[in-house]
Every structure is written in structure tokens, then in C-alpha cells.
């Protein structure tokens, strides 16, 4: 704890250097250039600039926040400016270096266009360096001021800025979606400029975010509190109305949003179904499964083989006949994988399941099975599901299939969590040996977790096959397992709403930003590290995990070191 009580010039330097290094990293991986055309505010501020200056802003904020605790506010402000200057100096240094040397041999992204961006609109080198230093120092100062603000206000401001950023990013999507609707035209003209938000729109969303946040954080106005005061029956009524309203909105969404956003939503939805399944295995039962994609593949391939009308046609069933088979086979695979790993824990389990996932992928790719499942060419011409005359042909229709899947799977997961088996999973997760001593049958409890998780993935796979109409082995990479695991961690391990939040952030957001695709893994990694440092229990934590990770265990004075073994003669 002593360490935190000091904040010296050396620490200031340290934060500045980190800011500079991170900024250079962001530049060199190509983010600044790739994001440069995505304007957020009125053709003035673009996402590239935000990427360029956010390291300085963040580190100035952290530095000022630490400095503020030890020394005066003035010192904190100076700190933030110094951090900004050092960060700016690094970027300026890169600019000078890049102009005089050909860095491209090593760093592909240091293109003339990039160097042009780093000039920040100034013609000469001296002007560019000055601009970098001044803007960085200003951004640093803003970060410092942010740290000095009362928490309530900085929080509200953060929400406001995030809303501005989000709406700026959404511009293209909004135009695609609503561009030709009459009611949207005046709104769109007000909030958006040609590229990015208009100044009016910026102000609107900033204020909206701030007001919303302040309203939410003031206890008196919270709608939840008001409802809690009502008598029980009315509470129920409010809940039912809210649920029906939510359902109505969800049902209207694809029609309202149109094709492209519905496509994104179905992808997110498929990940939500998988997340809910893996959440049972990892979150509830504490079994780390890295080969989860295998069950997804089994579900997809079962539907593919049984329904395709293409070259590989077999029985040509319809989707609804193939669906239970797909779920059943995935479930069986879950049990089959479960049996050999019953005695394994932690890392060993992770490695074996990882291997299992790869085995399935390799088998699917193999020449041996090529006559049946198509090898690398995959399975084509998978017909769309139908109910009567309603065909789930495009994303706007498949959406309903996914929604129904989420509701069913979510309900099952929710009921299982609070049921007897849910308690058994929880006990097993906490301590396998004691769970066994409490009379919990480990074999059946574990297998049930694997089977349920796998069945959910089978369902997701079946819908996935129907959605695409064709499936290829490369869709069933390890990356899918990692994505699902990451979204659970980001949302909060063991938490059901967390799965939805995690999927929206990790799957939905990158879909919105096409430039983002190259940096997806970088973003995941950074987000996971940041989450572990700042909010390890996830965005929507589950009760037990929140407890462990937020409460410091008081040192219990009564514990003594284990008694030394007595000598035997």
C-alpha cells in the first residue's frame, strides 16, 4: 500500500511514456489510418483521431487520478499536461522518423497517407510537431480535468460522450436503415452532417446521455424503486406488462430495422444461444470447455446432411425433422466428451476439450468423410425452414427463429440454475470433493452440464446452417469457442443477462464497424485485459462471483499455521 502514497516526477514520466508507446502502437497497427474516414462529429473529429489521442487521454486521466490523491489539484493538472506532452512528443518523434527514414520495410502501415494524417493539418514539419504537442497536451489536460471532476459528473459525461461516439458510428447504419423513410428525414438532417454528427446532434446526444445518467443514478427517480414500493400484485402486473412490451418490441424489430441490422441481430442471437449453453458448463458447473465449437459444428452439419437438396443429398428432410436429431446428436457428443474427462479438472480439462474441438474440425475437413459431408467444399443448398406458408428466408425471418431459440434456451437455463441440479453445479464449481461428500453425484451432475451445454450449441448450429443455407468447415474454428468464452467473461461468468450484454458488445459492435474487422482480436484482447483489471466480475455480475471478486477477505486472526507434524518414533 505504501507504493500508492507516492507520486513523483518519475511516475509522471512513466505515465507519459506509456501513453506515447500505446499511441505509437495504435498508429503502427494501422488503426489510425483505417479509422480516419469514419467521422464522428461534423467532419472535424474522426475515429482515427480518437484512436490516436485516447491513449493520452486515458493515461492522463489515470495519472491525474493518482496524483490527486497524494498532492494538490494543481499538481494533478500539471501531471496530466506533462503526460499529454510526452505522449505527443512520441507521436511527433514517429512523424519525424517516418519522414526521414523508410519505416515501411518493417512497419507496413507507415504509409505517406498515415504521415499526412499525423501532420494534423499542418504543412511544415515544425508546425506539425507543434500541433501534436499542443493537441496532446490539451487532450491530457482534458483527461486531468475529467479526473478532478466529481465522480457523478464524470460518469455522466462519460455516458454522454459514449452516446455521441455510438451515434456517430451508427450514422451509416441509420442511413441505410431509415434513409428512405419519411419520418426519419428531418431527424436525420438534424442530427447528422454529411459525415458524422452535426454540431446540433452532438450537443443533443451529449446532453441526452448526461441527463439520462443523472436521472438513473438519482435514487428517487429510479423506476425500479417506485415499482418495489407497490403491493405485490401490482408489481407482478408491472412486470408482466414490461415483459409483454419488451416482447412486442423484439417482435417488431426486424420489420422496423430492415435487413442489414436484422442480419447482425441474428448473428448476435446465435452467439447468445451458444453463450447460454457454455455458461452452463463454464459458469454454473465451473468446467472450462475450450472445444465448445464442436457441438455447434455437429448441430450445423446434422441439419446440413439431413436437409440438403444439393449434391450430397441424403434423406432431404425438412428443418423441423432434422432439428431434434441435431440437438440430440450434439447432446450425445457432449456426454461422450464428458465421460473421459470426468476425472479431470481445470487446465487438463481445458486442454482435452480444446483437442476435441480440433478433432471435430479436422474430421469435417478430412478426405475420408468428403463423400458424405463435402470436405472443404462444405454442404450447399440447405433449404430454409418453413411453417405453413411462412418461409424463414432472409435475416428478417430467421430472426424470429433465433428469438424463439433464445427465449426457450434462456428459460431452460434460468430454471435449471435455481433447480436442484443448479445447486449441485454450484457446489461442484466451488469444491468438487466437498460436493461429493455432501451427497452430490459428480458423474451425473457433470454429464448433465456437458449435455445441456452441448444441446444448446447444437440448436445454435442448426439455426446457423438454416440461416446461411450452406456450411463450410472454416466456420467452425477455435475462434468461435474463444468468442463464446470471451463474451461470457465480459458479460459476467454465470450471469444470464451477462451473456446477452457480452454478445452485444463482442459480436454486435464489431459487425457495425467494418473497418474494425482487422483489429477484432486486438480489441478482444485489450477488452479482456481491461476487464480483468477493472471489472473482473463482468458487466452484469453473477452474485457469487461478484462477492469473491469485490470483497477483500479480512485476515482472520484465528487461523494459525498448520500444526507441525509430530514426530513418530
Amino acid at each position: 500500500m505504501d507504493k500508492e502514497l507516492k507520486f513523483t516526477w518519475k511516475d509522471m514520466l512513466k505515465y507519459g511514456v506509456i501513453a506515447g508507446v500505446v499511441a505509437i502502437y495504435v498508429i503502427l497497427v494501422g488503426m489510425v489510418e483505417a479509422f480516419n474516414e469514419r467521422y464522428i462529429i461534423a467532419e472535424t473529429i474522426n475515429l482515427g483521431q480518437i484512436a490516436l489521442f485516447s491513449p493520452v487521454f486515458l493515461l492522463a486521466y489515470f495519472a491525474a487520478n493518482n496524483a490527486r490523491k497524494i498532492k494538490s489539484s494543481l499538481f494533478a493538472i500539471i501531471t496530466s499536461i506533462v503526460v499529454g506532452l510526452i505522449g505527443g512528443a512520441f507521436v511527433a518523434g514517429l512523424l519525424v522518423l517516418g519522414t526521414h527514414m523508410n519505416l515501411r520495410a518493417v512497419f507496413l502501415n507507415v504509409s505517406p497517407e498515415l504521415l499526412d494524417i499525423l501532420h494534423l493539418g499542418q504543412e511544415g514539419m515544425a508546425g506539425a510537431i507543434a500541433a501534436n504537442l499542443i493537441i496532446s497536451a490539451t487532450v491530457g489536460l482534458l483527461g486531468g480535468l475529467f479526473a478532478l471532476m466529481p465522480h457523478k459528473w464524470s460518469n455522466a459525461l462519460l455516458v454522454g460522450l459514449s452516446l455521441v461516439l455510438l451515434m456517430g458510428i451508427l450514422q451509416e447504419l441509420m442511413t441505410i436503415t431509415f434513409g428512405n423513410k419519411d419520418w426519419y428525414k428531418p431527424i436525420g438532417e438534424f442530427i447528422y452532417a454529411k459525415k458524422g454528427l452535426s454540431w446540433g446532434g452532438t450537443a443533443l446526444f451529449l446532453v441526452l446521455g448526461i441527463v439520462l445518467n443523472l436521472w438513473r443514478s438519482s435514487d428517487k427517480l429510479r423506476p425500479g424503486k417506485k415499482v418495489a414500493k407497490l403491493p405485490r400484485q401490482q408489481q407482478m402486473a408491472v412486470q408482466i406488462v414490461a415483459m409483454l412490451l419488451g416482447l412486442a418490441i423484439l417482435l417488431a424489430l426486424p420489420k422496423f430495422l430492415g435487413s442489414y441490422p436484422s442480419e447482425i441481430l441474428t448473428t448476435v442471437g446465435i452467439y447468445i444461444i451458444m453463450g447460454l449453453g457454455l455458461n452452463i458448463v463454464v459458469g454454473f458447473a465451473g468446467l472450462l470447455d475450450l472445444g465448445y465449437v464442436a457441438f455447434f459444428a455437429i448441430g450445423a452439419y446434422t441439419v446440413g446432411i439431413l436437409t440438403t437438396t444439393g449434391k450430397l443429398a441424403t434423406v432431404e428432410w425438412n428443418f423441423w425433422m432434422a432439428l431434434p436429431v441435431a440437438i440430440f446428436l450434439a447432446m450425445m457428443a457432449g456426454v461422450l466428451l464428458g465421460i473421459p474427462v470426468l476425472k479431470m479438472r481445470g487446465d487438463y480439462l481445458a486442454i482435452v476439450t480444446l483437442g476435441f474441438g480440433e478433432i471435430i474440425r479436422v474430421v469435417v475437413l478430412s478426405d475420408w468423410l468428403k463423400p458424405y459431408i463435402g470436405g472443404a467444399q462444405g454442404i450447399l443448398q440447405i433449404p430454409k425452414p418453413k411453417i405453413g406458408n411462412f418461409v424463414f428466408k432472409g435475416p428478417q425471418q430467421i430472426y424470429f427463429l433465433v428469438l424463439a431459440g433464445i427465449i426457450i434456451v434462456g428459460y431452460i437455463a434460468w430454471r435449471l440454475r435455481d433447480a436442484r441440479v443448479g445447486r449441485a453445479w454450484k457446489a461442484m464449481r466451488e469444491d468438487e470433493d466437498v460436493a461429493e461428500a455432501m451427497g452430490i453425484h459428480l458423474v451425473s451432475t457433470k454429464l448433465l452440464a456437458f449435455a445441456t451445454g452441448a444441446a444448446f450449441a447444437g440448436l445454435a448450429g442448426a439455426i446457423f446452417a438454416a440461416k446461411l443455407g450452406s456450411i463450410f468447415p472454416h466456420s467452425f474454428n477455435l475462434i468461435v469457442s474463444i468468442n463464446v468464452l470471451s463474451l461470457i467473461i465480459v458479460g459476467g461468468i454465470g450471469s444470464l443477462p451477462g451473456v446477452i450484454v457480452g454478445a452485444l458488445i463482442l459480436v454486435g459492435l464489431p459487425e457495425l464497424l467494418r473497418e474494425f474487422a482487422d483489429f477484432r482480436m486486438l480489441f478482444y484482447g485489450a477488452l479482456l485485459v481491461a476487464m480483468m483489471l477493472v471489472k473482473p466480475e463482468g458487466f452484469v455480475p453473477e452474485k457469487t462471483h461478484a462477492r469473491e471478486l469485490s470483497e477483500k477477505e479480512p485476515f482472520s486472526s484465528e487461523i494459525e499455521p498448520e500444526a507441525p507434524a509430530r514426530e513418530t518414533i
Partner: protein
Amino acid sequence: MTLLTLDNVHTYYGNIHALKGISITVDEGEIVTLIGANGAGKSTTLKTISGLLYPRQGKVYLEDKDLTKFKAHEIVAMGVVHVPEGRRVFSRLTVMENLEMGAFTRKDKDGIQRDLERVFELFPRLEERRNQVAGTLSGGEQQMLAMGRALMSNPRILLLDEPSMGLAPVLVDLIFDTIRELNQQGMTILLVEQNALLALDVANRGYVLETGRIVLEGDAKKLKEDPQVKEAYLGGA
């Protein structure tokens, strides 16, 4: 009446012959203790009884039922409950949740409620801390919780593994008082202890284990006076 019988039990860890023919009996209402040095096989004996380990040879009987034919979770349901050593509580769950886990095999709500009251009577500290997270309890409280959780399954016989381990002397006394009190209420207890003096004080009978064999057995008071035992386990004199 004999409640628990071990008849020439041999248990192995892989190739290591841990129990080399253990035969013990526990009568209903008794406290029987197993004493011996580290590695003598005390904990292994308890694990073999509760089904966490399978004997390669020999039988374990609860009255006339052969426990070696049952799995661990079935043995718990039959009323043989093991309190593992080292205060193994579910540290992220609350005291109440831990106790509820103890009643996992039961479905009689009234009985569970009655036993909960009994546990709180025995350990008032647990009632005070019912909503506290178990990991934040002190060592003594965690031992109480581990015992209370075992009692929640309404056992016929309690297998206690080193309840005094790592506890301050005051707390050790408290735990042993509770063991005595439980026994007076009619609970049969098989107690494994390194602290031989304490164990022999509280027990009716005792067995001395050495490297997987029983080397001495008999009345607890007599064992305490036995020169061999005194020499080896009671610190000479």
C-alpha cells in the same frame, strides 16, 4: 449395537498400499477415535468409509449393509457423513447457502428446518453470520460451519477429520465441547485426530494407527495410560 464395521480393509492409492487390513467397529452412540501420525492412514480410512475411495479388499458395513457396493452420494443419503479436513467450506457461498448444500440429499422440508434450528442452537455464531460469505469467517467459525453443514444431512454417524487442525487452543476447546454435546444428544462420531490427548479425552474407545495398520486398540482411558501411546503421541512423560 454396532453401527459401523470395517472388516480387514485394504485401500490403495495407485500402487501405494495405504490401508493394510484395517478392522474397526463403532457402536451406536459412541465416540471412537483414530489416532496416529501423519501418513498413518487415518484420513484414508474415513475416505474409504464415505466412498470417496474404494477398498481393494475387505468390507465396510453400516449395520448389515455393505457400503462398498454404494457410491459416495448414496452413502451420504444412508446417513454416513464426512467432514473433510482443513475446514473445506464453500468459501464463496454464504453461511446459509453452505448449510442448505448440506441438506442436498434431503427433501423433507420440516426436517431440514428442524435441523437448521438445531445447528444454530449448537453454533449460535453461525446464526449471527448466516448471511456472511463463508470465506470471510474465521478459522474456528469455518470449522463450525463444516460441522453444521454435515449435520444438515441428518447423519447417523459423523466422520470428523482433524477438527482441531490449525485452530487456536480456545477454539479447539470449543469444538471439542461441541463434539461432546453432539454425542450426548445421541450422535455417533468417528473422530480422526493428531492431537491424541484431546481425542482420547473425549472418546469412549480408540484405535492407534501406524503405517496403515492398527497397532493398538481399546478403551480411551486405558490408551491414554499406555506407555507406548504416551511415548509416541502424548509427548513422552
